[in-house]
């Protein structure tokens, strides 16, 4: 759901570590709301987060976060950002409450405010009873929730969450996602980097896919999951779907059965032919709309489109099987 001006932009951003080019000419505009950042391992997601935080400097290109240029205005920006790192990072030797109080004080909260806010966010994430225990003794799920509390205690405008559900059981994952939604409901924009596609599907409104340091896809969920070429449609048929498949093929339109539905490959200007086939087959339909892939298929397809080598490989396999690429 792209709204208003973007909360962060990257223009032609490149970053190289020794021989490895983590980002190459990345162009990106991140809208408000909950944005899922997807990409395979080593795609450049964590590098992007570090550049957004001003922890690292791009070799070239411009990064603007919340209206500030990075890393020049890093301190101002970090005061408005909450960051939950991917690593199991905690301040050593402190209990849960002290962890959150220190995080708040580092962001500029006075001690009294920090203490009050720390209790509040620890209540929010369900660590009320464990707040005086050493954080190192927490379970993984508790440590994840503690890090979320540390990230939001100062009331950030933008929250960067790097793999917040990694290693959590289904119940813990559901709670973490609900917390994220709750926080987003107060107008906090969230950038969620994850490998768990169902998490993105559950709460994200906008998706950014990074592959090999470049933008693979940026858009809303419907666009992400739109069919392989954008011209595949699903027709829900009440009965006798095979008659519709036959009628469509007679019109020269590719069609096949998918359980009780019919998948049709047609351009928009062929819509009339499709309706004619429906009339000719004399079947009742309950749905006619663009095909939405599942997240996994869409993810792989967007990576494939971005990756010429992989696409060549796929095409070669298809040719060997005697199919048109």
């Amino acid at each position, binding site marked *: 759901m792209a709204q208003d001006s973007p909360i962060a932009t990257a223009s032609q951003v490149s970053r190289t570590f020794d021989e490895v080019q983590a980002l190459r000419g990345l162009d990106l505009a991140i809208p408000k709301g909950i944005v899922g950042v997807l990409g395979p391992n080593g795609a450049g997601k964590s590098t992007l987060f*570090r550049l957004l*935080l001003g*922890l690292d400097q791009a070799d070239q290109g411009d990064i603007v976060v919340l209206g500030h240029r990075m890393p020049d205005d890093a*301190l101002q920006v*970090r*005061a408005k950002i909450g*960051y939950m*790192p*991917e*690593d*199991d*990072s*905690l*301040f*050593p030797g402190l209990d849960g409450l002290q962890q959150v109080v*220190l995080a708040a*004080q*580092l*962001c*500029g*909260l006075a*001690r009294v*405010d920090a203490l009050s806010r720390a209790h*509040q*966010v620890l*209540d*929010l994430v*369900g660590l009320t009873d464990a707040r005086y225990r050493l954080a190192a003794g927490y379970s993984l799920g508790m440590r994840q929730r503690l890090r979320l509390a*540390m990230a939001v*205690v*100062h*009331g950030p405008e933008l929250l960067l969450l790097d793999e917040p559900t990694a290693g959590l059981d*289904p*119940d813990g*994952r*559901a*709670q*973490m*996602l*609900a917390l994220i*939604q*709750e926080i987003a*409901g*107060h*107008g*906090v924009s969230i950038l969620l980097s994850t490998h768990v*596609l*169902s998490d993105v599907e*559950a709460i994200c409104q906008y998706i950014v896919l990074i592959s090999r340091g470049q933008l693979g896809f940026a858009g809303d969920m419907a666009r992400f999951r739109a*069919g392989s070429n954008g011209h*595949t449609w699903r027709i829900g048929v009440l009965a006798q779907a095979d008659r519709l498949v036959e009628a469509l093929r007679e019109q020269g339109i*590719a069609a096949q059965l*998918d359980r009780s539905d019919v*998948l049709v490959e047609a351009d928009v200007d062929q819509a009339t032919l499709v309706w004619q086939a429906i009339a000719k087959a004399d079947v009742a339909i309950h749905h006619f709309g663009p*095909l939405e*892939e*599942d997240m996994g*298929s869409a993810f792989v397809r967007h990576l494939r489109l971005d990756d010429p080598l992989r696409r060549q490989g796929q095409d070669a396999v298809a040719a060997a099987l005697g*199919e*048109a690429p």
Partner: protein
Amino acid sequence: MRTLPATPPPAPIPAASPQQPGTQGISGGQPKAFLRPGGFSLYQGEAVPQQQRVRRLALIFLLDHVRGWWVRVQMAGFLLPAIGFAIYVLVRANLPSAALTVPKAERMAHILQNLRWSFSIDLGFLLLFAASRLAPLITRDANAGALLLYFSRPLQRDHYLVARLAATGTLAFALLAVPQTLLLLVQMGVFGLDIGSSAGSALGIWLYLLLGTLLSSAFAAAAVALSALAAGVLVRAPSTVPLVYGGGILASLVASWVTQAAWGRDSLGRALDLHNALGGLQRLMAESSQWAQYPDFAWHIDLLGSGLWLALGAASTAILLKYLKNPPLGRGRA
């Protein structure tokens, strides 16, 4: 004909846990979880200035140093030499036999010797304490991923270093200065104004000794804090840091012994002993009024040793600044 992709059913969204008594569910779409009353709210308060944040961080670091009973026992151990010498002073001053009490002409040397030995023993304790407790601090932060937590917040890397140094240096200063000051006060109570040619000069000597003791403690504390933290960042594992720092001090001692064995006690090799060189700071500052009584060579050795520590301090600062330019960010990346 090209095969169209089949669409598997969407992945199920995990179910939420059942609602607990005393909790409430949040409204909205899937997935649901049950949160404590209150929910999230934005913070609307004022931010405190950067300097205040750094001071607060230094205080937090300082309190972190003194957490735990074993550390407190170790710190109490720093008082033992001063207590021992204070008892010695009190006993000798109250002996019934005048032959065993300290004659007035030797009182100054007696006072200085007590201070020197107490300071020297505490310096040894401090170097051990620094090796085991202070040196691993930054590496421990790096290994726990805490450096990433610090630097992803509005805190400059230099400010982190300043806070660390301030906390470490303050603790080291207290561990050195408090026992020496106590010993000095006991000696002042025992000998009073009966150490100089007049009451005024005696008062001046006591003030001079106090100032010298505090200054030398401050310089030694700063040197130890800097060198310990710098030695710590040279290795990856916090457990090996004490070996590096302690080993460095021990190596300097061995080098000094070897040099003195080869070229005699009055050789420049004496200045190589880092522990002795730190003691030289105290002798230079607290005993400078007595320099005329010392051989010139000892004075030069103390000066050389102090110079060695100054150079070590400068090198340590450079190492720490370089380390923080590109620190390991993330857990276990030290």
